């Protein structure tokens, strides 16, 4: 009888810029001031968009909304490292990814106003509509990455999901398939510690989410998701690895959503005030400010200017979106098939007639 160890794994945690602003010089990525400036502006824009959307929802001008505040670094910085030829698969909280990928703010408002027109993917973008059902986007992202390999395209796929999603079968099937095919995909798990009210310990008995990659034959790393430098360095390596044909990576970003899960959620039912306050001190935006200040590229005047610009862009985008919103019976039939079948044509004509009759009645 023999008993030999056949597998042994390890998973690292990476933090480069700590909560107090200290930088691990050995790991610090070489970032130009311009990069920091662009990423910072994106993060501030995301936050302004998010706050505006929350306010609009409270006023009844948007329906349901899911806020991202607190998670900007993991989204913006990772998406910033992708090129136009790359592709993202996202979820309902990925506003930072959308903005960093170049979706117009107007389009995003149209989306969150619950209009069919909001779903339109602009022709110059290669990204896939956000996913609301948990985890469905993961196997699709793997397939997209496999296609770029088969078609010999220089395109990397990044897929975003939460800690809750790692419990779905889709997560495991996707990672397995990515590992087997060495697909050029980066899995970005934003572990904000809760899936609505359910804490991470109820999702998995594993110590980390990152370690799950080991079981599927590739590397997983856990990082401080509120540390822009750690996100940058890890994502850069993962994207380069994928591009070089060396397969997938799972990045677990430890982060926290400052707000409720959605506008229908009350987090006081499952999180303590103390916990929330501690995380607000760990704000990725504040931490980035400190780093930029130490590099001499952030001060109050800069902050005011960036904020004012972001606010103006967001306000203007909403005004434009509101002016553009219109709904027509055709909207819901038009894109179901390439060619509209007879039953849909009949239903559409019926609905148009009914809507006209209702208008007449109101007169």
């Amino acid at each position: 009888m023999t008993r030999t160890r056949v597998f042994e794994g390890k998973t690292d945690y990476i933090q480069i810029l700590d909560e107090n602003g200290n930088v691990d010089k050995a790991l610090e990525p070489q970032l130009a001031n311009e990069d920091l400036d662009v990423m910072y502006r994106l993060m501030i824009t995301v936050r302004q968009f998010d706050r505006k959307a929350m306010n609009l929802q409270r006023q009844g001008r948007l329906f349901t909304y899911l806020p991202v505040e607190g998670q900007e670094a993991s989204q913006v910085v990772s998406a910033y490292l992708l090129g136009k030829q790359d592709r993202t698969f996202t979820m309902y909280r990925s506003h930072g990814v959308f903005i960093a990928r170049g979706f117009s703010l107007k389009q995003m408002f149209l989306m969150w106003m619950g209009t069919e027109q909001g779903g339109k993917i602009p022709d110059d973008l290669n990204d896939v509509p956000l996913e609301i059902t948990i985890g469905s986007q993961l196997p699709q992202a793997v397939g997209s990455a496999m296609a770029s390999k088969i078609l010999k395209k220089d395109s990397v796929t990044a897929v975003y999901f939460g800690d809750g999603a790692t419990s779905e079968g889709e997560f495991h099937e996707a990672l397995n398939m990515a590992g087997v095919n060495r697909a050029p995909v980066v899995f970005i798990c934003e572990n904000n510690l809760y899936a609505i009210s359910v804490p991470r310990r109820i999702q998995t008995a594993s110590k980390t989410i990152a370690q799950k990659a080991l079981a599927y034959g590739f590397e997983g790393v856990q990082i401080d998701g509120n540390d822009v430098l750690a996100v940058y360095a890890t994502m850069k390596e993962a994207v380069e690895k994928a591009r070089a044909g060396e397969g997938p990576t799972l990045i677990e970003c430890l982060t926290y959503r400052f707000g409720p899960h959605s506008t229908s959620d009350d987090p006081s039912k499952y999180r303590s005030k103390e916990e929330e306050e501690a995380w607000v001190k760990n704000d990725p935006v504040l931490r980035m400010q400190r780093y930029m200040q130490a590099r001499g590229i952030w001060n109050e005047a800069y902050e005011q200017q960036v904020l004012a610009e972001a606010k103006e862009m967001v306000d203007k985008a909403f005004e434009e979106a509101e002016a553009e919103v219109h709904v027509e019976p055709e909207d819901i039939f038009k894109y179901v098939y390439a060619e509209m079948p007879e039953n849909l044509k009949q239903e559409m004509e019926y609905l148009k007639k009914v809507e006209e009759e209702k208008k007449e009645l109101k007169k």
Partner: protein
Amino acid sequence: MRDEMAKMTMIDAINSALRQEMERDPTVVVMGEDVGKNGGVFRATVGLQDKFGEVRVMDTPLAESGLVGAAIGMALSGLRPVVEIQFSGFIYYAMDQIVSHAGRMRTRSRGRYSVPMVVRSPYGGGIRALEHHSESNEAMFAHSAGLKVVIPSGPYDAKGLLISSIRDPDPVLFFEPMRLYRSVKEEVPEAAYEIPLGEANIVREGADVTLIAWGSMLRQALEAADGVKEKGVNAEVIDLRTISPFDFDTISKSIEKTGRAVIVHEAPRTCGMGAELAARAMDHNFLNLKAPVVRVTGFDVPVPLAREEDFYLPDAYRITRAINQVMSF
């Protein structure tokens, strides 16, 4: 005490049914995403974990297939699980477990095993929710063997039907129209009571046309019935309540009397329950019919997003139009 009534919303009524069944039967367990500490995203399970503990009221990992599969295993082993799927648009993850396993276990074991499980799920449109949060998918399950499908139309029915579903020896899908959760209150007995599965309810008697609806569509049908009454048309309104196995006997008797039928459902038209009911009317009432059976349904499209869902949902106007159509045929 036993006859005491209380004004309840449908959420209150569901909570009351769960609580009483858990008190009565220690094998009843409640499981799902956010059902424990949070009391459910619609608060249907509020207070249950405090009362019955974390073992009987379980917050589970986010995994619908795992959740329903595990519930089947529990049901095979002496428990009566009541699973919550957070919205009926997420039930597809568990389709294999429900359709290929829960519905077949009795057949496959030649009666040795059964799956006394209830899958509860908020269902349907009308609350301007996000994509995938407004699906009406009862027909998919009615199309599958071995499953029961129940849709209450108000608080009183919700409590009695849920209690019957929990006590039923077979797997039951219990779809709760979200639109009705808090919008209506009814007098509901404090004590437990059953409303038998498989029995339709004649909500209003009438001689001219039979209106068949369920869930939130019942209210639209009643509104239309009120409207046509002023013009001298008396509609008989039937709440199907159990979608599978359904009570065609009540419908058939009504059509014998009225000779006309309008079927209303929120789900898409093609292969919806309306198609099945209309076919049964052909089988049983061909010689009674004075006009073709008319369906008022959702369309064969993905449920539209919030701002456009009113285009999709049948309303009293569309139902009235259909009534006029069968009356003037």
